[in-house]
């Protein structure tokens, strides 16, 4: 079943076409990777899919409902969560508190119930705390729960951000370079984590430069180059695709 369908998304910045009529689908229960050289338009596309940026044209449907034009909060609440290339954690809060914030996507907004310590507000807090602890265990970083996010090593920060995104109860998780800054051991652990997340019923779309990781985890890969889609398919096919090889090696002409 198609969970996310991206159709002809185009985004221009002045004269530069950052994303050029890109279309692809993400199927439920799979891990899809989005790759391409620097400046290929991956992060811009991510922002378009999550309400952080509005494309000039094209449409995105998530679970049959349009995404473009909705606020980031609305997008998250509909079940589409993301992480950032530069982790956006709350440094003065503990890892656990960071993840608890993710639970707010589906909680009330008012100050009054909290100010008056109403029973349902207290229950909400307990639920958020329990859920955050569970997610830290799922990701395998529960020993860091009480450390301030600002004091965490880079690799753990990425994992906390994934846990925080999971706390919003997403059906689709968009990861922006989750392996950047990780050492080989951490990357291997990340692969296992991604499989655990997928097995927990969350579909994943991942932007990543680490080709080893991409080839290992993805069911399908989309390749972007200079804003346009140049290839799409399973890892084995992508590895042999001449256009992809050219884009990565920088060849001018491709002939078989």
């Amino acid at each position, binding site marked *: 079943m198609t969970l996310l369908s991206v159709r002809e998304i185009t985004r221009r910045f002045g004269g530069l076409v950052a994303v050029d009529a890109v279309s692809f689908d993400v199927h439920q229960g799979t891990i899809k990777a989005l790759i391409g050289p620097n400046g290929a338009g991956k992060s811009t596309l991510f922002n378009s899919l999550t309400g952080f940026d509005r494309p000039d044209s094209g449409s995105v449907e998530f679970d049959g409902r349009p995404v473009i034009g909705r606020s*980031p909060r609305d997008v998250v609440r509909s079940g589409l969560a993301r992480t950032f290339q530069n982790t956006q954690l709350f440094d003065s809060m503990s890892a656990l508190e960071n993840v608890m914030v993710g639970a707010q996507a589906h909680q009330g907004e008012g100050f009054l119930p909290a100010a008056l310590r109403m029973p349902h507000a207290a229950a909400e807090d307990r639920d958020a705390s329990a859920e955050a602890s569970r997610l830290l265990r799922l990701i395998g970083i529960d020993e860091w729960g009480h450390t301030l996010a600002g004091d965490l090593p880079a690799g753990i920060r990425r994992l906390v951000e994934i846990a925080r995104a999971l706390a919003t109860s997403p059906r689709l998780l968009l990861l922006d370079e989750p392996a950047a800054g990780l050492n080989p051991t951490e990357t291997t652990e990340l692969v296992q984590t991604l499989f655990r997340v997928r097995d927990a019923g969350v579909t994943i779309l991942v932007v990543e430069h680490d080709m080893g990781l991409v080839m290992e985890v993805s069911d399908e890969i989309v390749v972007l180059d200079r804003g346009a889609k140049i290839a799409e398919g399973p890892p084995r096919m992508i590895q042999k695709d001449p256009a992809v090889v050219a884009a990565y090696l920088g060849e001018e002409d491709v002939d078989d």
Partner: protein
Amino acid sequence: MSRYARRAIVIGVVVLLAVLPLVVQDRFLLKVFTFVGLNALVVVGIALLFGYAGQVSLGHAGFVGLGAYTSAFLAVRVEVPWLVCVAAGALVAALGGLVLAIPSLRLKGHYLAMATLGFGELMTLAFREAEPVTGGVNGFSGIPFPAIGEFVIKTPQQLYWLVWFSVAAAVLLAANITASRPGRAMRALHGSELGAQASGVDIVGVKVRAFVLSAAFAGLSGALYASIVGFISPSLFTTAASVTFLAMAVIGGSTSLAGPLLAVALLTLLGYLDALLPGLSGTTGELIQRFQADIYGLAIIAVVLFAPTGLAGLWRTRRGT
């Protein structure tokens, strides 16, 4: 610090503040301690808005003035019961907060500071120029004492208790907020607006609510001031006062209520040092008063340079947490 030690300190401070008027009989000193409470009401709101949510306001004296003039006008010209006047004062200030929240949705940092500064200046101008309503530069006098039904609250002791009861209520509400979901939402907003949005935090709602609540606390303080002192004038609600309130919150430290409250007490009492310490010579007292703004300024510089996390941060560091 264990929860019990913390609770013991809180209870100790509350008891101390509650019995203070029984020990201190001096009318002037009681008035000074009442002013500490009135400032504390404003600064608790700023601690939420600035210390937790990270939104700067250089216009909070405007909200204090809105509360003061609204309640004074209703009490003197419309002759409405005191409780209604106070509630209306807080409500009108809250509406002002709603208005000021709108630029905060688009502006950040220095730009937001400028917008709020402009709001404060506009309010001072309005208090001075809207003479038929506010009495202009001559001020608004003859504001009756607080009264609940037939019972008039007018002795220094009673007024002290009234103010500190309000402070206790405000601090309790604020502490409940900071300890739960909205508190985390405010800190998240402060830490990373992008991260907060991606976590599904309603950042518009959080900003608006923080502005409205802190404005309501300031308005309440103003309304209480008007009925306690009986006279208000535009010179009370200037940008200088706004800066002082913000200075107290900065010196107190972010993500803390206790730090800013301590800073309020220290900085407010500083101005009345000669009354507090009978041994202090008159000239020293005068000197301190004359250089009060400079002392605040130096204190802020010292905090920014040597203890960017404020009094609360110093305490946390010493505790090794």
